[in-house]
C-alpha cells in the first residue's frame, strides 16, 4: 500500500485506525509474496489453498472486515518522541477498536481462563519503547494470533554448534510446527542477545518489509539459505504439501555472552498483519512495514 497521509488526530484515534488497517488490509509486500508463490506452485492442493487465501484477502479489504477471526494480541512499538501517557492512549484505542472493527476479545486470565472482554487486562497492552531525538512519534502494531505464536521456540545452543546449529534449529522448528502456524508465513529469527532480548528480536523481525534486504550481508545470506531450504521441504501451504512453506525469513542480531548462542524463532502466519503511523505536527503518515 502506498503511504497514506492524514491530518493530525488524537492518539487513541490513530491507534484505532492502525488496528483497522492491520486487520483489514494485508501489507502489500506480503500480498506480492503470496501472488508470486501462487505462480510457482505446481500442486493443485497448494494452489487451491493460496487461491482461497487471496480471495479472502480481497473480500476482507472490500468489506472492511478482519481477514482472520483471530485478531490476535496487538503488540505495539513506540519510537521517537513520546511520554508515558501514550500507554493510556493505546489502551483506549484497543478497547474502542475491539468494539468498532470489531476484533475478537482474546485476552483471558492465564489460570481461570476468564475473558477480559476488551483485549486488555493485566500487563496489557504490550508496548515496546524506542525513544529517539526525532521530531515524530511513530506507533507500530503487529497483530499476533495464537496459531503462529504458540509455535514460538527459543534455545540456548552451545557456541560450538555455530551457524549450522542455528540453521538446524530453525528448520526443525518450522517443519515440526507443520500446518499449525498457517504457512506460508514469515519466519522471524532472533540471534544472540540474552534470552528475553533474543525472543523480542525474533518478533521485531516480522515488522520488516519482505522487499527490503537485510543490510548485513552475512545475515542476508543466512536468510536466503533458509528461504531456499524451507521452501524445498515440501511442507507447503497449511502443511498440506507444496513448494511454498515460507514467504520470507528475517533475522535480527545482537551481541551475546561468550558462553551462549541464543536463537529464537517467532513465526508470522500468512496473515502477518502490521501497520505503522508516523505522527508529526503537520500530519500522520501510515505504512504497513518498518525496520526499527
Amino acid at each position, binding site marked *: 500500500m502506498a503511504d497514506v497521509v492524514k491530518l493530525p488526530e488524537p492518539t487513541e484515534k490513530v491507534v484505532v485506525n492502525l488496528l483497522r488497517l492491520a486487520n483489514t488490509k494485508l501489507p502489500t509486500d506480503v500480498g506480492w509474496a503470496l501472488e508470486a508463490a501462487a505462480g510457482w506452485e505446481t500442486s493443485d492442493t497448494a494452489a487451491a489453498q493460496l487461491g482461497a487465501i487471496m480471495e479472502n484477502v480481497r473480500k476482507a479489504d472490500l468489506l472492511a472486515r478482519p481477514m482472520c477471526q483471530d485478531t490476535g494480541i496487538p503488540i505495539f512499538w513506540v519510537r521517537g518522541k513520546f511520554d508515558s501517557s501514550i500507554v493510556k492512549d493505546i489502551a483506549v484505542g484497543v478497547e474502542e477498536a475491539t468494539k468498532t472493527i470489531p476484533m475478537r476479545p482474546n485476552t483471558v486470565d492465564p489460570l481461570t481462563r476468564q475473558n477480559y472482554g476488551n483485549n486488555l487486562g493485566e500487563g496489557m497492552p504490550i508496548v515496546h519503547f524506542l525513544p529517539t531525538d526525532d521530531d515524530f512519534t511513530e506507533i507500530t502494531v503487529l497483530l499476533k494470533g495464537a496459531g503462529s505464536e504458540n509455535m514460538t521456540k527459543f534455545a540456548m545452543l552451545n557456541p560450538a554448534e555455530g551457524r549450522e546449529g542455528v540453521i538446524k534449529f530453525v528448520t526443525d522448528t518450522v*517443519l515440526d510446527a507443520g500446518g499449525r502456524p498457517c504457512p506460508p508465513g514469515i519466519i522471524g529469527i532472533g540471534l544472540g542477545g540474552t534470552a528475553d532480548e533474543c525472543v523480542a528480536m525474533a518478533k521485531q523481525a516480522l515488522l520488516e518489509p519482505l522487499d527490503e534486504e537485510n543490510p548485513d550481508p552475512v545475515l542476508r545470506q543466512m536468510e536466503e539459505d533458509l528461504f531456499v531450504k524451507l521452501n524445498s521441504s515440501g511442507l507447503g501451504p497449511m502443511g498440506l504439501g507444496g513448494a511454498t512453506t515460507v514467504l520470507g525469513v528475517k533475522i535480527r542480531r545482537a551481541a551475546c555472552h561468550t558462553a551462549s548462542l541464543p536463537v529464537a524463532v517467532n513465526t508470522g502466519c500468512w496473515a502477518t498483519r502490521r501497520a505503522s503511523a508516523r505522527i508529526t505536527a503537520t500530519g500522520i503518515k501510515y505504512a504497513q512495514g518498518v525496520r526499527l
Partner: protein
Amino acid sequence: MRNLNAPFTEKTVRELKLGEVISVSGPVVTARDEAHIRTLQLLDAGKPIPAILRGAVLYHCGPIMKKSAEGVWTVIAAGPTTSARMNKLEPRMIRECGIRAVIGKGGMSAEVAAVMKECGCVYLAATGGAAVSLAEGLAQVTGVDWEDLGMAEAVWHFQANNLGPLVVAMDTEGNSLYEQVRERLNRA
C-alpha cells in the same frame, strides 16, 4: 466441488476420499478447547449436553460475532483454529457424541485418526485465516450455547450454505494427508 448436506451418515463419510475437496451445507457447530472440556465433564457427571453436538459436524473455530441492537447475532469472521490442541479431547467426543466430521486446520494426531477409522468420522481441512470467505458459508446463526465461555470458546450453531472449500485431510481408513506430507519432508 461436491456439496454434502449435514448431518452426515456413517456411509457418507466412509465414502469420502483422501484429498477430495468438498463443501458442507446444513447444521455446523463450533467447539474449541473449553467447549470440549465442558462437554466431557458433563458426560462424566451423567448430565445432558447440548443436543446439537450429537452426530454433529464440529468446527474448530472461535468466530468474531456481532450482536445487533435487536439482539440478532451475525458472523463477521470464522476461520478454523489449530485442531492439534484438541488431540487429547477429540477421541471421546467422537466416540461418545458420534461426531461425523471435524473441520479445522493443521490436522490431528494418530490417536484421533484411529478413532476416526473405528467410529466413522473424517477431518476436513479449512484454509487457515480464510475467515471472511468461510463466514459467508456460515451465513445463518441458529443459536449459541455456553456464552459464559467467551465469544471464541462458546458453542455457536450455524446453518451452513456451501461452507468451503474443505479438503478431506484425514479419512475413515486412518490415512492423513498431513502424515503423508510429513513422511516425505526434505530436511536436508
